[in-house]
């Protein structure tokens, strides 16, 4: 593992037992992600993409293997320290834009910062940081709104703000544009790309090659195994990147 490696996964296995039947969702998955990378995980439905994301982020327990996040082995952490890790060092963006129903947009965004003891800040300072993030992502006008008073795109951008509020080491995104229309998807990806260019490491799961083409690397997973890795040349125009990726995916059997 190099100094730049933020996430290292070795021989990761995840098995579910449903109705006494064993289902090996992940089989000996190994890869690593360096600081500043934006990595997409693609694969057909049921290939284990989301399971991979939740397992490497500590949200779900692995059956076997090793996952190291910022040098710390996740299997050696108890539930409380995993929770602390998720709060202080990780950010999450979900497909369904889950927010707390009884809080306003701004309150949802600053909630992790209020809970965290990573920074010794006053409530005012936390609020200001939240507002700055909202301004950065172009949603400062909806801060006082309830979650059902904004569009899907605005809500997802609010989720991005929430994931960033504690300056995490890495963001995990599960189909961040899955529930959005094309325009909103482009807006959200633009923001994520911007964050990545500013140094935030991102691992995202997607089935959309247009989204994946904006990343620096794509992992292709089938039946719980990583079948291939594709490095995207960022200097190429987007259109060429997309075409290259699509060709590669077709070779992979997509």
């Amino acid at each position, binding site marked *: 593992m190099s100094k730049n490696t933020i996430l290292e996964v070795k021989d990761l296995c995840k098995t579910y037992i449903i109705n006494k039947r064993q289902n090996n969702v992940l089989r000996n998955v190994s890869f690593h992600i360096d600081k500043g990378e934006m990595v997409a995980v693609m694969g057909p439905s049921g290939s284990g993409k989301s399971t991979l994301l939740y397992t490497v982020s500590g949200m779900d327990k692995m059956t076997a293997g090793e996952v190291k996040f910022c040098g710390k082995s996740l299997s050696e952490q108890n539930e409380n320290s995993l*929770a602390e890790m998720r*709060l202080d060092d990780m950010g999450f963006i*979900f497909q369904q834009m*889950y927010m707390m*129903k009884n809080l306003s947009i701004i309150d949802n965004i600053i909630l992790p910062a209020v809970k965290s003891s990573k920074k010794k800040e006053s*409530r005012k300072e936390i609020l200001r940081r939240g507002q700055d993030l909202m301004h950065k992502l172009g949603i400062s006008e909806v801060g006082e709104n*309830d979650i*059902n008073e904004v569009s899907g795109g605005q809500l997802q951008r609010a989720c991005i703000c929430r994931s960033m509020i504690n300056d995490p080491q890495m963001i995990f995104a*599960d189909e961040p544009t899955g529930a959005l229309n094309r325009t909103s998807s482009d807006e959200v990806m633009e923001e994520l790309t911007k964050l990545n260019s500013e140094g935030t490491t991102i691992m995202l799961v997607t089935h959309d090659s247009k989204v994946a083409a904006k990343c620096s690397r794509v992992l292709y997973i089938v039946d719980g195994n990583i079948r291939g890795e594709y490095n995207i040349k960022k200097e190429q125009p987007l259109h060429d990147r997309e075409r290259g990726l699509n060709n590669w995916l077709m070779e992979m059997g997509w």
Partner: protein
Amino acid sequence: MFLRILKKDLKRKKTMNIILLLFVIMATTFAASSVNNIIAVMSGLDNYFEKANMSDHFIISLSKDPDAIEDMLSQKPNVSDFRTEKQLVFHDNDLTRNGEKFSEFSSIGLALSVDNAQINYFNKDNEIIKSVPQGKAYLTGCILNRTHFESGDEIQLKIGDTELTLEYAGIGKDAFLGSDMMTNPRIIMNNEDYEKLAADEKAQENNSAAVFYINGPDAKALESDLSDIPDTVLNVGISVIRTSYIMNTIVAGLLLIVSVCLILVSFVMLRFTISFTINEEFREIGVMKALGLKNRSVRGLFLVKYLGIAAIGAVIGFFLSIPFGNMLLSSVSRKMYLGSDSSAAVGVLCSLAVVLVILAFCWRCTRKIKKLSPIDAVRSGQTGERFKKKGLLRLGKSKLGATGFLALNDVFSSPKQFGIMTVIFTVCLLLVMCLANTGNTLASRKLLPLMCSTDSDIYITDTDMIMEVMTGETTVTEQCDKIEKKLTDNGLPCSVHAEGLVAPTVEFKGNKLSPTFMYCKDTKASEYSYSEGYAPKYSNEIALTSSVAEKLEAGIGDKVNITIDGKTDEYIVTALFQSMVKLGETGRFHESLEVPDSAVSQVMGFQIDFDDSPDEEEINSRISRVKDIFDTKYVDDTDGFVMSCIGEGVKDTINGVKVFVLLITVIIVIMISVLMERSFISKEKPEIALMKAMGFKSRSVRRQHTLRFLISAAIAAVLAILLSTPVTKLCIDPIFGIMGALDGVEYNIKPVEVFAVYPVIIAAATVLGAYLTAMYMKTIKASDTSDIE
């Protein structure tokens, strides 16, 4: 397909369906048992008296010639028929267990043969006592207060020179003398045992008595007619006996209030749960409509589901209601027959009613299905309340931590949900507080004016000393002087006086009564409280209670004729007052009236006023000394004296009900907390998973959920504290009014007990129920955010 959808629904939503089933069981149990209890209580006394074959009027006579009394009764124009029960008198000294006196009662006890019973007596199972095995006996009335008997225990009864050992056969329910306020216990025995005692020569001379059960068409005329029967210890109409059950009736009335509250609580919870579960299923409704199912079919699906759950719950609840109802009733029916002959039918009807109510709730809640389009329903299913504003508080402006803020915000954002819980907790608390206030007031000096006594330092209520006056062994004055001298000789200089009870005949405008008059030559009539008029100033002036004045049809300024010891004089009524002595059938003479000692039939107790006016602490220490000096435990301060006047059984009954109701409310509160929290977890699964994903620890989320319940309980506590005094006055004043306190009473509220202990108990129960249930959140993982639809 319909059935398949139903089967899947029942399986998938197992948790909420089970919660609903439990609420249905609770509602049916409470409804069926409570309605049965309400019927039993409301028809209670009438039913009891009818079953006991009671008469219109009652006389206990100590005449050695009961036949002469019978002749007199036969000649009374207003007497239609009468029955005679021959009895033998005994005192508390005559009844021992293992050689020691075990019960204290200031009046006489009566022993009778079961073969000669003229009314029906009941055992603990409410069966008529038709026979008693030789060597055994049933005990009734105040003999059972503060004593614990088990089947097989033996007592010794000595009448005259004959002593019998009798085995305790069980409790006897005596409609005539069995209430908490009557002080004449009875022993029902086998005829052979009775004859042994009756054959004793000394018993024939000194212990003969008879109880006459008399019927007549006109109660008032009958009372007037019978006022001159000689050698009577008790001579009262059935209305007085009915009033003597006031404490039992109060307790039964409180049970009624508890029952009504239980019904309300269970139906409120049911309504909430049904509405909650149907709202959660909006999306499913939308999908079904989009697939082409008609409104009727969709609605029918819910009705069938809820009918099934309701039917199962109602059946279980019906069977549970039987022991539950009996348990509630047993707390008040130890000494009286309380029950309903049609309890099973009522239970079935209530269970059916619960099922119908559930269907009605369900029908009402599913009304919306007709108005919604499939898209509306699907969209509504996404958030449940798409266009309603939420979130009154702001995290950015709050000083609370994340957990505390989220808890408070949740409560204010769902006022209906938490409001229902708060109201239920408040009602539960108010119930307990009212009972506590009533019990504390019954045992406090605030009722002293109603006991027709002045405030003294210490009161001696030893029955031996009182009996010496009653039997004529000594006079009131002599007894007071004796006590005063003994205390002074022991270094406690004081003055002693006693309230004497005189039983003259009063007549006005043809109305005759035999109320009890209070008389004390050592106090002034002006020292007592009066509700109307002015205190008697001269020897020919009297005060009456309102109920006596009403019966005589006399008012302030009227002149009534009073006969004391055969001498009749005219007296002016100058005042009306309130009294709980002899159930409000009282009057007061002026202190300057010369009442012969022979006319004083009883004293309330001996009141001691120390010359040095000691403080409360000193009084308490002197109570122990006085107990030692007179070798008696019946020495009290003012609070204790009031309690002894009311009756220890009354206090025990009220306290028993208070503890019982507290237990029931704690169980209800825990149940509601458990079931509500379980529903919340089910409903808020996405948010719980999200919080865990964000990095909230399990214990933080648990704390947040528990805190919500604590906030509800705290609001309930504040509301209950504010409302406890007015609600107590509203509910309990009428009850004290029936006992004679027509203008209400000043309640003795113990702030620590009422405002701290009970709210803390209820809050603790709530928190316990919620916290233990919140442990279930362990099963929700952060990765469950991916499973939520």
